[in-house]
């Protein structure tokens, strides 16, 4: 029994060429990396001290950065979605600025505030003798700066789309605004919150420009995986390729996992 392809369904031929080109553009680099990767040295590369250190550092800093982004970002998203105050639009623009800013610029901005001579940093140094630059804390802050907007935008969008009808029902039952947020609104936007958090984590994991500018580069302390890749480009290019592949696979996995969520939202 043959299947007849109905004429009005399917992709028009004119759209196929750009689509295939786009696929090639995105997939070929990944393939290229996989082909050039020194598979024989895989075990050796992944177990060197530098790599193990930077992998561990990348993992814990990105997770902490994600947690911070959620704790700070959800209330911020709430404020932006539901609040009515002067300057809200300006705040909205400011919050999304890191999304379009080159990360290095973000690093420079962070130095301007928290560097040793920075707006806030100078007091930290003069009063307490500490600076945040060149510490793992700086790594986390750099990641939060570039990644938190993903979470805020995700949650804000979900809150705007969320049904205020349930808020009314909760209020009529005597729930305070805090209780309503905690027991009704947040559970209902949980899928969007989760997707936003995963995206935030992936962005934090891959962060480079702000990190190297603000936190510096020192193995074991501030050298995250992307920085190790960059350093390896000079000393051990094969290792650079392998590590790049690791990062790419992680990001690909994230996108595959989230694809269902995004397509589900579009289909609704």
């Amino acid at each position: 029994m043959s299947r007849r392809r109905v004429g009005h369904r399917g992709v028009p031929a004119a759209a196929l060429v750009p689509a295939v080109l786009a696929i090639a553009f995105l997939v070929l680099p990944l393939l290229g990396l996989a082909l050039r990767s020194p598979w024989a040295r895989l075990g050796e590369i992944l177990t060197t001290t530098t790599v193990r250190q930077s992998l561990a550092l990348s993992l814990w800093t990105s997770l902490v950065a994600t947690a911070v982004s959620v704790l700070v970002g959800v209330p911020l998203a709430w404020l932006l979605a539901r609040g009515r105050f002067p300057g809200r639009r300006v705040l909205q623009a400011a919050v999304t600025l890191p999304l379009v800013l080159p990360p290095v610029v973000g690093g420079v901005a962070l130095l301007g505030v928290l560097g040793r001579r920075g707006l806030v940093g100078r007091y930290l140094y003069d009063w307490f003798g500490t600076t945040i630059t060149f510490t793992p804390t700086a790594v986390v802050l750099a990641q939060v700066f570039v990644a938190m907007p993903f979470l805020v935008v995700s949650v804000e969008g979900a809150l705007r789309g969320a049904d205020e009808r349930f808020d009314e029902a909760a209020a009529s039952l005597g729930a305070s605004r805090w209780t309503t947020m905690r027991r009704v609104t947040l559970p209902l936007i949980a899928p969007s919150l989760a997707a936003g958090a995963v995206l935030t984590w992936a962005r934090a994991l891959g962060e480079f420009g702000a990190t190297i500018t603000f936190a510096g580069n020192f193995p074991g302390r501030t050298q995250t995986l992307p920085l190790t890749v960059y350093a390896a480009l000079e000393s051990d290019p094969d290792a650079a390729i392998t590590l790049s592949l690791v990062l790419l696979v992680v990001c690909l996995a994230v996108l595959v996992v989230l694809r269902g969520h995004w397509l589900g939202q579009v289909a609704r």
Partner: protein
Amino acid sequence: MSGLELVGTVERGSFTARVELRVAPGEVHAVLGPNGAGKSTVLRTVAGFEALRSGRLTLAGEVLDDVQADVFRRPATRRVGTVFQDHRLFPHLSALDNVAFGVRSRGAPRALADATAHEWLERLGVARFADRRPAQLSGGQAQRVAIARTLAAEPRALVLDEPLAALDVHAREEVRDALTEHLRDFPGPVLLVTHDFADAVALADRVTVLEAGSVVQTGTVAQVAAAPGTDYVARVLRGTGGTPSSAPR
């Protein structure tokens, strides 16, 4: 007066509706009118989802909304239970957790809230659905759970916004019977918004007819049925088969 008293105007899109409403404790008062008359706005104002344009709203002697004195109590503090047309059960909670929601919001510990919730589910005849999610309930079952939820929170007054309008014929019977039983026992004032005179007949003591933003008639159900004040009322009465012969209320 220790019931509900609303004297003022509410804003409804293009016009303002002038309303004077007094509901005694234990009285079920129906607000009847065609779509767009402003009945839902009145209800939402009583519940606190909207504010008065002018005038005053009091419940059990307490001022809930006073435009001149600049007083406005948020819905969560009014303890005016609301039953919505679309039940609005929280989709992520079971029927039991839904009913327990208002009880827990007032600070009751989990065990007590669950016990109270079970009781109310029993009274509304839906105890066997305690563990089901709202999506797994029929329209009539969901609305009964919603009524249980509202009553479990021990409100001081009740407002019902067209509670039967979204239900099919069978479910409507089911829920009307449940309401008949429970509204009778409710100690506080009850405001029932509806466009169906049959609901008023079955459930209410008094009726206020609202048309295009004005109160056109008010009185007991029998009074209004006997002497319809406007064409609309007459039409509505005709739609329910004329003067109701037995009006036990």
